[in-house]
């Protein structure tokens, strides 16, 4: 179980998170929704160790992990699939997947996971020897997800997995996120597509300017008037 208690983070002197608390239980899919700049990505970066909190506690299965470097966080089973896909453009698809398994020592396990990824994402197999930068946006997102899974995490954090994708691909990405959860992994997802995120998740947190302002099940947030007005009002979603 992952628990954030009163976590504050700043970029220089600008506060980015002001006392955020949230928790993620075994097997849950949690969404973080909110406007740009609300602190959603910052929350993920703080959990994965890219940012160090000024104050507050982060525990993973009861062990404090705040301030540990990303390598140690990953070792403990938390993978971060960053915003904007961030595949290594000049590495091949296969090398990108190998980077995902960098900390693992079990050669046979890595090979069988690689086969499983190729089976799940046949496009990646077709393009295994190709530089990742030459893939389409949708293929790059599949690669970024597969790369995160190659570390065999217990928790995957997806930052805006549907950003910039065509509607049919958006649907596909959310289907994959759901599959990941069905495999028993915990998922923490940041999404601008609030309707899709709320329909998919068990529970959600709504963030505004560095604070969690509301939380509840996906259905509760979907039904609440202010969420509807602010994030769902009048917008047509494909997913």
């Amino acid at each position, binding site marked *: 179980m992952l628990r954030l208690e009163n976590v504050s983070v700043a970029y220089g002197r600008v506060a980015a998170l002001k006392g955020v608390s949230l928790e993620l239980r075994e097997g849950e899919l949690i969404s973080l929704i909110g406007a740009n700049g609300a602190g959603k990505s910052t929350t993920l970066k703080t959990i994965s160790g890219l940012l160090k909190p000024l104050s507050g506690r982060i525990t993973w299965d009861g062990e404090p992990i705040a301030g540990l470097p990303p390598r140690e966080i*990953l070792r403990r089973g938390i993978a971060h699939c*960053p915003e904007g896909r961030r595949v*290594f453009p*000049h590495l091949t698809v296969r*090398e990108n997947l190998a*980077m995902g398994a960098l900390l693992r020592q079990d050669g046979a396990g890595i090979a069988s996971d690689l086969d499983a990824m190729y089976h799940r994402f046949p496009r990646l197999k077709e393009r295994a020897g190709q530089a990742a930068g030459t893939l389409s946006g949708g293929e790059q997102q599949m690669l970024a997800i597969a*790369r995160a899974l190659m570390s065999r995490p217990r928790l995957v954090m997806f930052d805006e997995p549907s950003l910039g994708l065509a509607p049919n691909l958006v649907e596909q990405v959310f289907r994959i996120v759901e599959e990941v959860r069905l495999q028993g992994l915990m998922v923490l997802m940041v999404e601008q597509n609030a309707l899709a995120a709320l329909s998919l998740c068990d529970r959600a947190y709504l963030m505004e300017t560095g604070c969690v302002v509301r939380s509840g099940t996906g259905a509760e947030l979907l039904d609440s008037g202010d969420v509807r007005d602010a994030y769902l009002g009048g917008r047509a979603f494909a997913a």
Partner: protein
Amino acid sequence: MQQALQHLVNGTILGGTYALLGIGLTLIFGVMRVVNFTHGELYAFGAYMAYGLVALLRLDFYLSLLLATLLGTALGAAIELLLLRPLRRADIDSVMLAMIGAALVLQNANMWAWGGVAKLVPSPFAGTPLVFGPVSVMPLRLFVLGISCALLVGFWLLLERTRAGIAMRATFQDAETASLMGVRVGWVSTATFAIGSGLAAAAGALLGPVFMVSPTMGDLVGLKAFAIVILGGLGNLPGAVIGGFALGYVEEFGGGFLSTEYRDAFGFLLIILVLAVRPQGLVALKERVG
């Protein structure tokens, strides 16, 4: 024609060591975004270490070259740990000034330790050239070419075929995401700087028996290393190899057919030309690394 063949051979031999210099510098820039002004001094350091080990300590020639390269690698690691690591969050101007300062210190240390008189590293190779038809070449120079090419291939295999190499290239492309994969970016920086320095020291140690070793030799070599890297495109590894050989050929052919006096100038003329016509470098690849 015969003369041209001879220059081609000489240019290839020179180009191999220039390529070693170039990939070291371009790798350091690519991974760390550090403009390494100490590069020429590491070359001089390698040459002096080879001289000290062979001429003063009377160690085996081949062993001395290996040790000189390893000492250069260690010096590079020390510079990274003591100077660059504390400046990791500093702006580029501070880092550049620190590197210029380090270059001055290294150069004056050479002067102090070895004196101003040029030295030659004694080599066990015969002084009579091998003759292949119209071309003659000193055995020592063939040895230099062989080792340069072996180091280039070895380095390429390291980058392409090992996990460490893939991690290094990933860091080159996106350090933050590489850290999310578990890469210790700080150690990759140290390793990169050490390997780049080791390659420069190897080039110096290899050419120490061919050319004279003098305390200020690092100045011109440092400039040439930048020239090679700019020719190939900054941060472009295959480009640095091509730039190294291009510079070797231009110097050799220019020196042979036009004027020996202006030999070093031809290389810089080439750079001015390339910058005017193709500022992105000779090899503007879609792919910047590997």
